[in-house]
């Protein structure tokens, strides 16, 4: 049987933030977008999430900072970034021209810093949304990550929410016993959307020298290795809250991305895959489109959360 098939409708909404399509690049894996400009047609992307920005510039951790692991990698960059002022003056001009949504990932040592960043960035033309990285240590609480204590995660979310009119996405840490508690607390504190997962904490030792393979000893595990954990957490989080969820973790193919959409993610972010395959995000977008056509779906929205949790 022949069928009239029009191109599936690809746009999705993350609360107030509308994306032309659900494929973004993840923070820390796509620089400030210009690094990929000669290799990737940036305007095709649903959005770009830039490297995490803090108030003051940070120089990051001592080398070595990256090490490969089976089907994954550990990074201990240490949140190196140019600081919010240089970000605005040096990086935003290019980002404003790239033809897709620009989401700024923010991080701080204290709740006040998050709030200050949110306020500062709200005034900047071309910033479409904020993504709040709560996997950072709370200096006042002895370095416990904001994202591992529900009260602290709530406090950061509320502080950012109060300081900006921009859409607020809160990015959850996977290093917790119960991701649904964190998801609910953050949703109840005013987030417009959630994104998850950030990296799992891991480590690698050089047997010969008996030293860490990372300057910082521990680092964040990312890449295909973590996809099963990420998918499970996205499914649990999306089932626990009513706000939209962005799926992240080991996504390298359209099939991976579709798994996250089926599990309840409204959009996805491509991280480590940008390193080994800069075309990944665009290939994933094309592949999702093909999948929708094969499955006779008229829009990407109609597959979100349609995972059938029976067997």
């Amino acid at each position: 049987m022949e069928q009239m098939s029009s191109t599936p409708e690809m746009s999705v909404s993350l609360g107030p933030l509308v994306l032309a399509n659900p494929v973004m690049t993840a923070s820390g894996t796509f620089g400030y977008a210009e690094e990929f400009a000669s290799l990737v047609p940036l305007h095709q992307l649903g959005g770009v999430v830039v490297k995490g920005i803090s108030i003051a510039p940070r120089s990051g951790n001592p080398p070595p900072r990256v090490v490969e692991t089976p089907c994954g990698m550990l990074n201990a960059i240490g949140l190196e970034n140019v600081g919010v002022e240089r970000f605005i003056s040096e990086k935003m001009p290019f980002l404003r021209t790239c033809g897709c949504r620009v989401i700024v990932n923010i991080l701080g040592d204290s709740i006040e810093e998050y709030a200050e960043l949110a306020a500062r960035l709200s005034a900047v033309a071309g910033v479409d949304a904020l993504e709040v990285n709560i996997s950072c240590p709370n200096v006042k609480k002895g370095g416990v990550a904001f994202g591992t204590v529900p009260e602290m995660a709530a406090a950061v979310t509320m502080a950012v929410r109060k300081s900006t009119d921009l859409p607020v996405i809160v990015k959850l840490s996977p290093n917790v016993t119960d991701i649904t508690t964190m998801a609910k607390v953050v949703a109840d504190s005013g987030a417009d959307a959630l994104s998850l997962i950030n990296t799992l904490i891991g480590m690698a030792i050089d047997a010969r020298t008996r030293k860490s393979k990372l300057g910082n000893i521990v680092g964040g595990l990312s890449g295909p290795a973590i996809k099963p954990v990420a998918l499970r957490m996205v499914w649990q989080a999306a089932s626990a809250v009513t706000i939209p969820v962005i799926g992240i973790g080991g996504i390298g193919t359209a099939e991976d991305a579709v798994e996250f959409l089926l599990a309840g993610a409204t959009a996805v972010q491509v991280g480590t895959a940008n390193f080994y395959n800069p075309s990944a995000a665009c290939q994933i977008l094309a592949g999702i489109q093909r999948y929708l056509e094969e499955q006779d779906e008229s829009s990407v929205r109609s597959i979100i959360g349609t995972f059938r949790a029976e067997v």
Partner: protein
Amino acid sequence: MSEFQENCTVVAVEQLADTFYRLTLAAPQIAPASHPGQFVMVACSPGLNPLLRRPFSVHRRCDPDRIQLLFRVVGQGTELLAAKKPGDVLNLIGPLGRGFTVDAADPVCLIGGGIGIAPLLFLAEQLRMTRRACTVLLGSRTAAELYRLTADFIECGCEVEIATDDGSAGYHGLVTDLLPRRLSAMKRCYACGPKPMMATTALLCQAARVPCQVSLEAHMACGLGACLGCTVHGVENGYLHICRQGPVLNAEEVAWNR
């Protein structure tokens, strides 16, 4: 920036020594854009393990459309490359990073240790095109690793002196031992090799007030300036990112003792 992602067909595979291989690749976009000292990121496996691309210096540009890579087999990725056959296709990103300064300085000295020799042949060939006098000092574990490479440098008109760890050819000892006697005449040095070799070279050049450029290595995830993984300690601005600020740096920018 002219950076390309390109499927490159393997044209030839040479085993130069025990663990030294040389690949010739058709790279019609990357080859013409390449400058000595720049590198490419090679996807060694079509699958997910090893996951990340591996950085290799452009060893040489053959006719305008081809580049060569010279590599030593040290792990998974280089093992896969060594097993490639003509006709196989490799995905490359490049040319990347800042290369060597090629200017009017004359005469110049190139010092390569082990697989660090890789970028120097492209540099020598470029320098010889404008008839710069090039002295090339090559060091390696053993003579076998140097036969073919020595011939290539001589063929392009360089004066070559070699040193081996085992004394199987040339001077028995460190390649940097050959440098002091040459240095006073030089207008510039270019070095690539193990870090201690480059550190010694940098020190000698500094003492002799000869400008020196080095090509550094660091673990890289992206090669594009995005992951911020490829740091080395710089003298002034804290950290340097090898893939964008390097891999070639002026020796005095690097904190050699870190």
